[in-house]
């Protein structure tokens, strides 16, 4: 994906659904249907900020059967690098945005015998679209949704109305915790678990599932983490023959894009492997923050995922 393939959309609705989450509705400029997508897909929203361009991934939460608008939920991040504040403070009904075509890196397993969905906070968004596909189908499923407190439970009424007893709510404020061990130890063969939420929750679900004997092919997760900050460094792009400065609070990918060099990407979260780039020279060490490369590949240091990973070095040369 690169910016040449974006779609122009107009914001046609904004609703503050919790103190921290805004719900946006986007329609194609000029009307008509937007491209089809499947539950679990995300889009990248390209935001022309005052100082830099932000490209943030957001899950599509509307029904895959309704393509006249796309719906996204944006949580205001306390330590925003700018993207979520831009969406919350700068975007109004009528604003125009560019978005990248939907991509699904968090699809439901089509031959699963049961789906176990686990959401934490804003992590509910991809499940809202998946539930549209699951609802009324023959495959059993249940949703376990954990939030800080009742006022932070985004889209709760919609879920209660549609899902009834398949919805299990947990409120931190009441000291309620999802019983991960009990849940994961008692699922019938052929179940798939999907988790989206804070990093701690995702890691806990993965490790608990593994300790209950789950094979990795039945464990699915998605997290859109902002690229971690780090020391500033310089990178030389061998094919483009230019040097690029990477500031401490900007990702390697963003810096390269700001210099006018396009790198293919899909998730911008260190998961999909699309921005995989060869390292030609390095006089320090790479700081791998992705979930794509194996530990062995990370140790080898011959490639990097510039969307989330950085370097601690004087000189880094990339095959770009």
């Amino acid at each position: 994906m690169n910016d040449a393939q974006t779609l122009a959309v107009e914001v046609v609705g904004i609703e503050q659904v919790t103190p921290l989450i805004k719900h946006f509705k986007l329609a194609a400029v000029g009307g008509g249907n937007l491209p089809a997508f499947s539950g679990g897909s995300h889009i990248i929203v390209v935001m022309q900020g005052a100082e830099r361009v932000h490209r943030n991934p957001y899950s599509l939460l509307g029904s895959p059967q309704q393509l006249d608008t796309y719906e996204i939920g944006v949580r205001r991040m306390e330590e925003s690098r700018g993207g979520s504040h831009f969406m919350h403070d700068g975007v109004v009904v009528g604003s125009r945005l560019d978005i990248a075509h939907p991509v699904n890196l968090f699809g439901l397993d089509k031959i699963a015998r049961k789906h176990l969905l686990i959401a934490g906070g804003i992590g509910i968004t991809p499940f809202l679209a998946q539930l549209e596909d699951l609802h009324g189908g023959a495959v059993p499923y249940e949703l376990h949704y954990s939030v800080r407190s009742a006022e932070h439970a985004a889209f709760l009424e919609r879920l209660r109305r549609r899902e009834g007893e398949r919805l299990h709510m947990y409120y931190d404020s009441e000291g309620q915790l999802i019983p991960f061990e009990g849940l994961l130890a008692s699922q019938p063969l052929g179940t798939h678990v999907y988790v989206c939420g804070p990093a701690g929750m995702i890691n806990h679900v993965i490790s608990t599932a593994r300790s209950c004997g789950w094979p990795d092919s039945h464990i699915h997760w998605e997290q859109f983490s902002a690229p971690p900050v780090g020391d500033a460094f310089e990178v030389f792009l061998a094919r483009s023959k230019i040097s690029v400065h990477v500031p401490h609070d900007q990702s390697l990918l963003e810096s390269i894009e700001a210099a006018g060099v396009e790198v293919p990407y899909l998730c911008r979260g260190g998961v999909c492997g699309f921005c995989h780039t060869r390292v030609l020279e390095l006089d320090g060490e790479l700081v791998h923050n992705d979930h794509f490369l194996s530990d062995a590949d990370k140790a080898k240091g011959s490639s990097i995922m510039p969307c989330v990973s950085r370097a601690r070095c004087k000189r880094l040369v990339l095959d770009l």
Partner: protein
Amino acid sequence: MLVTGIKSKPVYAPLQADMRGRYHLMLGMGVGAAPLLRVIDEMQSAAAGTLKNTRVLYVPDGGDTGAATGQVSAAPEIERFTAAAVADVQAFRGTPALLEEFRSTLGKSLMGTRLYVAGPESFIGLVMKIALEFNLNKDEIRAEECGTLARRVYCIHCRATTETVRTNIVQCIACDRWLLVRDHYSRRLAAYMGVMVDAEAPGELPPLKEVFL
């Protein structure tokens, strides 16, 4: 026509215990007892408690896909499994009875179960076919091929399956066509594909050879 060098031909590896699993379900036929006993030994030395969650379903040699049903109790292999401290061992007179029990077991099993299958490829295939219906993936199943290489052959013309095929060409049990036995394997059908060998030149058959022994 491409007969060998086809990617769908299954590849097997020696069985190894997967201690990440919580429950272990073993299925064996004939000489398949030996690899299973090897895994049981491996489990016992890694963590003896594992055997409490281990179950063995077994068909002694000669137990074929015929009509024999029900359980047997006197097979010498059973004593070997029991002696190895596996609590739950069942032996069956034939593959259909074993598969019936296997299917009902999977229906009651939980996530965290690992399958170990050892025996002739035709037996492994029938087990895998059912495992697939329960959405078990490659990382939950291990299979070791031992015993006869005789194949189940699916007639692509009349859809009948001919069992225990040992030759390069075979006459379909249902439509009598002579079929060329290819390495093209269907996991869903648990059979190799048989294609009419003399369609272009009726009556011209390659020499019959025993190749799957």
